[in-house]
C-alpha cells in the first residue's frame, strides 16, 4: 500500500486514503488526528493523551451533512480512541466500519460493503506504523516550512523596513542614497542626465505643533501617497525625514529642464489640493531645490546637499518654481558660516554692545528705553542688525546673543537704578526672538537674570513681534501671563505689520502695543497710515493697553500722533539709540 512521498501532511494522507479507496474498494474513509489546543496535529509523547479532531474524509460529506454530524461515526471513533486497538462494527447488514490506530498520531476509519479479512487487517498494522512515521515526517516538515515561511516573512519585513520609511511607506533616506548612487552610475554609463528634487513643506511645524502629531502625520501620509503617484520606472520618491521629501528623476534626455519643471509643477499641483484631516482642511505649499547629475556632482551626498541648499534658497526667496543649485549658493552659505563664526568671536570679544533708545511721553518726559543690539565688526565696522539678526536666527547663535542681551540689560538696569531717576521713567525693554521664546526654561532664565543683578522685575519689559506670538499662540499667552504675574510686562512690537487680529490680540495679556515705524513715517501726509494708527490706538484703548509709536522723526509726525491720541513715542525726533554711557547722561 503506497503512502506516497508527499511532505505536506494533508496531501500525504489524501494520497494514502485514495490508495486505500482504490485497493480496498471502500465506501468512505476518515482520518482523525491528535491535535494541540490550537488544533494543530501533533505527535503524542509516551503516555500522553490529547483530543483528536476530524482531519480528512473521503467523500467530504455524508447524506448532505458533514461527517462530524454522523453520530454513528462519532461514537465509533470515540470507542476506537478509548480502546486504542483495532475495532470493527457491522452497523447494518453487509456494511461495516473498521477502526485502526495510527500510532502516536491519530485514528483511521474505513467504511466498507464487505468484511475485511484478517490477513488484510494484519498487513494494515505494519502499514500504519509506516504511516505514523510519514505523519511525523510531515509534521516536522510542516513546522520547518512554517518556520522558513515566518523567517522569510520577517526577512522580507526587515528588508522592507531597511528601505522604507515607517510612517509613509516611501523609500527612506538610506535607500534613496543607494538609488541615487546607482542612478548616477547609470547616467554616466548611458550618457543620461538625472535630477534630485529636495522638497520641504512650508510652515508645516505650526500645524504639527498646534494640531498635534497625529494630524501632522496624517498630512505627511496623504502627501506621501500623492507623491508616490508620480513614481514610475524613471522616478523614485522618498521621505528624507520630518517634512522633507526627495524625488529622484532618472534617464533624462537633453530636454531635462523641461521634465524637471514639469515634475515641480506636478508636485505643486499635488500640494494645492487641500488636505482634509478630521474634518479640517489644511492648505500647504513647499519649497523645492534641485541639483543635476552628473552635471553638478557625481556623488550622492553632494547632490543631496546641493538640492537641500537650493531648497533653502527657494524658501528664502519664497519661490514656488523650484531653484536649481548654483555654486554661488554654496559660496553664500560659506560666507554665512564665516559670518556666524565672526559673530561668535564678536560675542566673546565684547564687540556687541547695547544701545538704548529712550522713549518719551507727550509732556516730553522720559518714560523708558528700548535696548538695541549693536555689533562693531573688527573689519567691516558697524554691522546692520537687519543683516546679522536673521543669520543669527538661522543658527542657534541667536540664543547666546539673546541671553547676553538679557543679562547685559539687567546689568545696565542695575546701574540705572542707582541713579536719581525721574518718576516718569519706568522700564527698559529688550527684544526676544522666536527661538528664545520656545525654550522651556525661558522664564527661569529671565527671573535668574533679574535676581542675579538684583533689579526690580518691573524695570524689565520684553518685546515680542506679533508674528512670533501667533506662531506659538497658546504657549505665548501662557508665558506672557506668567511673566506678568512676576511683574514683567510684555509689549507687542511692530504692531500692524502682521496678523493684527482681534481674536488673538484680546487673549494676549500684553501691556503695550508699539505702532510700527512704517505707519508713523509721514503720517501727517498719509490718510492710510493715520487711519491704521487710529485703529491701533482705539484697539489698544479698548483692550486697556498702552500705545507707543516707533520711529517718530519729525514734529509733524509727533503732532499728528498726539491728535490721534497716542501719547508715548520713540524715535530720532527725541533721540537716536545711545551707548549706555551717553544714555545715562539723560538722567543728569
Amino acid at each position, binding site marked *: 500500500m503506497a503512502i506516497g512521498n508527499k511532505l505536506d501532511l494533508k496531501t500525504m494522507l489524501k494520497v494514502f486514503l485514495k490508495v486505500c479507496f482504490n485497493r*480496498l474498494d471502500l465506501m468512505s474513509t476518515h482520518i482523525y488526528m491528535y491535535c494541540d489546543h490550537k488544533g494543530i496535529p501533533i505527535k503524542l509523547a509516551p503516555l500522553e493523551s490529547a483530543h483528536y479532531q476530524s482531519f480528512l474524509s473521503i467523500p467530504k460529506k455524508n447524506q448532505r451533512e458533514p461527517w462530524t454530524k454522523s453520530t454513528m461515526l462519532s461514537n465509533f471513533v470515540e470507542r476506537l480512541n478509548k480502546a486504542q486497538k483495532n475495532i470493527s462494527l457491522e452497523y447494518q447488514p453487509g456494511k461495516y466500519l473498521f477502526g485502526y490506530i495510527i500510532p502516536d498520531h491519530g485514528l483511521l476509519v474505513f467504511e466498507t460493503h464487505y468484511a475485511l479479512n484478517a490477513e488484510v487487517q494484519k498487513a494494515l498494522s505494519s502499514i500504519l506504523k509506516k504511516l505514523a512515521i510519514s505523519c511525523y515526517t510531515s509534521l516536522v516538515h510542516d513546522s520547518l516550512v512554517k518556520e522558513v515561511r515566518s523567517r522569510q516573512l520577517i526577512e522580507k519585513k526587515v528588508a522592507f523596513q531597511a528601505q522604507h520609511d515607517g510612517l509613509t511607506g516611501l523609500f527612506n533616506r538610506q535607500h534613496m542614497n543607494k538609488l541615487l548612487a546607482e542612478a548616477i552610475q547609470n547616467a554616466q554609463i548611458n550618457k543620461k542626465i538625472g535630477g534630485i528634487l529636495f522638497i520641504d513643506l512650508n510652515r508645516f511645524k505650526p500645524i504639527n505643533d498646534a494640531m498635534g502629531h497625529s494630524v501632522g502625520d496624517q498630512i505627511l501620509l496623504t502627501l506621501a501617497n500623492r507623491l508616490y503617484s508620480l513614481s514610475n520606472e524613471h522616478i523614485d520618491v522618498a521621505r528624507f525625514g520630518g517634512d522633507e521629501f526627495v524625488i529622484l528623476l532618472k534617464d533624462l534626455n537633453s530636454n531635462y529642464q523641461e521634465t524637471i519643471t514639469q515634475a515641480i509643477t506636478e508636485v505643486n499641483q499635488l500640494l494645492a489640493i487641500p488636505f482634509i484631516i478630521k474634518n479640517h482642511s489644511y492648505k500647504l505649499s513647499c519649497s523645492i531645490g534641485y541639483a543635476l547629475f552628473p552635471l553638478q556632482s557625481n556623488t550622492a551626498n553632494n547632490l543631496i546637499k546641493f538640492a537641500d541648499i537650493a531648497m533653502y534658497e527657494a524658501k528664502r526667496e519664497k519661490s514656488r518654481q523650484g531653484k536649481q543649485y548654483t555654486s554661488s549658493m554654496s559660496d553664500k552659505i560659506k560666507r554665512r558660516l564665516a559670518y556666524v563664526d565672526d559673530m561668535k568671536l564678536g560675542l566673546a570679544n565684547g564687540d556687541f554692545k547695547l544701545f538704548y533708545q529712550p522713549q518719551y511721553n507727550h509732556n516730553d518726559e522720559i518714560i523708558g528705553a528700548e535696548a538695541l543690539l549693536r555689533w562693531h565688526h573688527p573689519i567691516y565696522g558697524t554691522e546692520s542688525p537687519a543683516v546679522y539678526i536673521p543669520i543669527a536666527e538661522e543658527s542657534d547663535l541667536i540664543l547666546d546673543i539673546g541671553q547676553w542681551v538679557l543679562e547685559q540689560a539687567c546689568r545696565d538696569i542695575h546701574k540705572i537704578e542707582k541713579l536719581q531717576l525721574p518718576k516718569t521713567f519706568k522700564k527698559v525693554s529688550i527684544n526676544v526672538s522666536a527661538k528664545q521664546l520656545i525654550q522651556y526654561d525661558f522664564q527661569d532664565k529671565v527671573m535668574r537674570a533679574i535676581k542675579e543683578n538684583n533689579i526690580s522685575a518691573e524695570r524689565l519689559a520684553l518685546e515680542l513681534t506679533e508674528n512670533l506670538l501667533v506662531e506659538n499662540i497658546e504657549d505665548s499667552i501662557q508665558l506672557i501671563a506668567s511673566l506678568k504675574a512676576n511683574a514683567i510686562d510684555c509689549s507687542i512690537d511692530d504692531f500692524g505689520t502682521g496678523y493684527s487680529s482681534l481674536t488673538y490680540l484680546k487673549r494676549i495679556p500684553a501691556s503695550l502695543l508699539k505702532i510700527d515705524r512704517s505707519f508713523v513715517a509721514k503720517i501727517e501726509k498719509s490718510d492710510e497710515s493715520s487711519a491704521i494708527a487710529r485703529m491701533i490706538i482705539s484697539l489698544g484703548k479698548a483692550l486697556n493697553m498702552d500705545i507707543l509709536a516707533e520711529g517718530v522723526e519729525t514734529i509733524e509726525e509727533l503732532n499728528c500722533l498726539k491728535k490721534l491720541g497716542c501719547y508715548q513715542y520713540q524715535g530720532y525726533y527725541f533721540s537716536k539709540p545711545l551707548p549706555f554711557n551717553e544714555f545715562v547722561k539723560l538722567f543728569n
Partner: protein
Amino acid sequence: MLNGPFTWYTLSDTFDDFKKGLKLAQNCGAKSLMVLTCTQNTYPEQAFNGLLKTCSLPVFGGIYPRLTHQDTLIEQGALIIGFKEEYQVSVFPDLHLCKSEEALEGLINLELEKNKNFGAQENFLMFYDGLMANVEDFIDCLFECLDHNITIAGGGAGYLDFIQRPCIFTNNGLQSNAVLLVTLPRKITTSIAHGWQIFKGPFLVSEVQDQTIQSLNYQPAFDVYSQAIESASDYKFQTDNFFNIAKNYPLGIEDINNNLIVRDPLLSINGQLQCAGKIPINSMVYLLESNINNLVNAAEEAAISLFSRLTSSTEQTAMVFDCISRVLYMEGEFDKELQVINKHRTSVTLFGVLSIGEIANSDSGVIRLFNKSTVISAW
C-alpha cells in the same frame, strides 16, 4: 404529448439528413434532446454549432466512434432521443485549464453550489471528452465534493485517431475538454461487465506517472509486457503493430474483492505503456486475455442482471456505453454482443454509444473509469 421517448436515427452521414431529424425531434413534443453522432460523419462544424446554439430545447450528447440502436451498429449517421421531461444539464467546461486538484475542486464546487449540490437528484448520465487527460481527477473530485451518493453511467466521446477535437454537444455549441452531467428524472440502474480473465501475473507497478506505466517489476514496462505475451503466444511486437496485439491483452488491476478493473494499453513509447486510465503506484496488475464468446457472455450476463432488476414499467429507456475496443477486438462478430443485450431488453428503447472509456459506480458506490467494458443502464 409523448408517451415514451422519441427515437430517430439515420445511417446517412449527410448534414441535411441530420437537420431533418433534429427538426422532427424538436417538433415531437420533447422537452430535451440527446443527440449522438458518429465520428465518420462530415458535418460542417460551423453550421452544426449553429444548429446546437439555436436549438430551442436543452441538448446534450456527443460525437462517438460508433452508435448502436437495439441490435444495429451505426458506423455513420446519427441518433436523436427526445425526452418528455426537461433534463437538467450541468456543463463543466475547459477542464484542461484545471491543473491542480484545488482548481478542479473549485470548479466543481462552483457548479455544485449553482445547482444546490444537485438537490435530491441521485441519477446521472455523464458525457465527456474521452481524450481529456484529467477525467479520473474529475470523477474523484466529484465523488469527494458531492454531499450524497449518486448513481451514474457514462462514456467518453471523441475520435479513434486520438486527435482531440470538440466532441461534446451543449446548447453553447461543440466543446472539447468538457464534461456534461445530465440529471435523470428517474432512478437509473446499471450493470457492468467486461469478460476478461487473468492470463499472466501479477506484476508490481513499480513506477507510474498517471496513465503511463514506466516500469513493471522494476523493469521497463514494455519489455515485461511484450516478453510475457511473446513467450505465451505467436505474437511478435514490431514497430507498428502494438495496438493490434495489445487489444488482445489488456491489463487488469485486481481489487480486494477480486474484481478486475481493466486498463487498455494504447501506446508504447520509450519502453513505457500508456493506458486509457490511471494505474496506482505499487498496485499489482495482471495481463488479461479473453475471446469473443467470453466477452459476449459477459455482456449477456450484464444485460440479464440489469433487465431482471427492472421491475417498474416507468423505466422505458436503456442505454449502453460499450467500449470501442470491444468492436476492434470482435470486429465482425460484435453484432453478437448487441444481439444478446437486445434479446433481454425489457425497455421501450435501447440505444448506445461505442465509447473511449466508460463511467459507472463500483460496488462501493465510488465513481470509476472503466476500459474495455460494457456499461448498460436503464431509467
